[in-house]
């Protein structure tokens, strides 16, 4: 209920002030719960695509190129240009160098490829 002594402008100022205050006051726990609920609604496939996209954006040229190719492959699966069986038998990404960071990221890409084949279409 609006206090009769307040103008509408003053009333809205108080409401906005309170909204601002509540936004600041949200606890880490409340924030995490909201984010967690939102993440819970995301399909497993989508989270893996998001992680491939992160690898596409890498400075590492080899990883970026391989992640881009892999993203196209995953999109073909999603667009039904490729069956799940066809997707499963595609070759893993290979790396014969000895750079630890590249090796790790290649392993992540192959891991995601395998994980999508386990969970798709979820």
């Amino acid at each position, binding site marked *: 209920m609006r206090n009769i002594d307040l103008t509408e402008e003053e009333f809205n100022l108080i409401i906005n002030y309170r909204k601002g205050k509540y936004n600041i006051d949200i606890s880490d726990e409340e924030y995490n719960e909201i984010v967690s609920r*939102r993440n*819970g609604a995301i399909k497993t496939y989508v989270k893996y695509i998001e992680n491939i996209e992160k690898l596409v954006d890498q400075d590492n040229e080899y990883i970026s190129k391989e992640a881009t190719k892999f993203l196209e492959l995953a999109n073909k699966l999603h667009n039904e240009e490729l069956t799940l069986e066809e997707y499963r038998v595609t070759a893993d990404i290979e790396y014969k160098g000895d750079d630890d960071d590249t090796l790790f990221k290649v392993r992540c890409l192959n891991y995601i490829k395998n994980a999508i084949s386990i*969970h798709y279409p979820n």
Partner: protein
Amino acid sequence: MSRVNVSSLVVNNRLKLPVLSTAQITALSPETGMMIYNSSNNKVEIYFNNKWNNAGADLLPVSAGGTGGAAAKDGSSSTNAATSAAAIKALKPSSTDGVYWIDLPGVGPKQVYCIMDSNYDGGGWMMALKATRGTTFSYGSSYWTSTNTLNEGSFNIQDGDAKFEVFNRFSAKDLLAVWPDLSANSGCFSVPRGHIWLENNFWQGGTKITLTSLFNTANETFIRDANNFCGIGQFSRQTDVRFYGFNYSNDQNLARVRWGFGWNENGGGLWPNGNQGSDDVAGGIGMTGTQQGQVNYSAGDFIGCCQNVSGFNRSARVEVYVR
């Protein structure tokens, strides 16, 4: 030798015991309560607990300069096998790390590597299992749930795979893991040998249980939020599920661990509410994961993707002790 049975023998002046050498004593058919003078070591000895005991030092407590009593089981031999490393530690607080004889239920005296160093949460630990980098003790291995053993003679802290009768027979209350090839002075307490996991009263608030029974019985036994475990230090993490405990299995058993962590980042928060459909990070002792690209580490840490903290991400050595 003739034998005289009397109900009471009073000696008014002096009593001369039979004087025998160790070789002669060994040839006797001893009975509990016999007393002799051993001329080989100039000691009076009394026979009980199936052995000749020094009537001097062996009857004195440690605090008085004795050995803690002839009946004391100090783990120094098969005959003197103790009931546990903690019992030896209580008897002789200055005991050092090493191999002791422990009398285990069902199998009798066994040589066991023990940590007596008080810096290890007071000491008194017995080695139950050790794993080198590899797959011998992955989740599906029968070593976790059967009373088999492996390389029982390897009771030392050298790199290798071994499972001892301590794992199968000793009902324990406290659990310790030493990770020798991770960074030292880290984990639940600080010692130079590596990273440490410690879980006192690990089963139902302190109920004693053998490890074989534990891993046959535990069904996703959640101990606490993994982020609050003192041993989390060098391990990878994700934001949700955050299981820490025994016998974890995610949905469809795609990611499993005997003692360690379950992680995911698909929302839902803490176990059991967190989404466990696609666990992408694993860590602990006794790992297996199809979700994780056939990770079958005896122990270690694995990142598939999507971690928010990156750990050591490889197979690792571990030693498991009980008390």
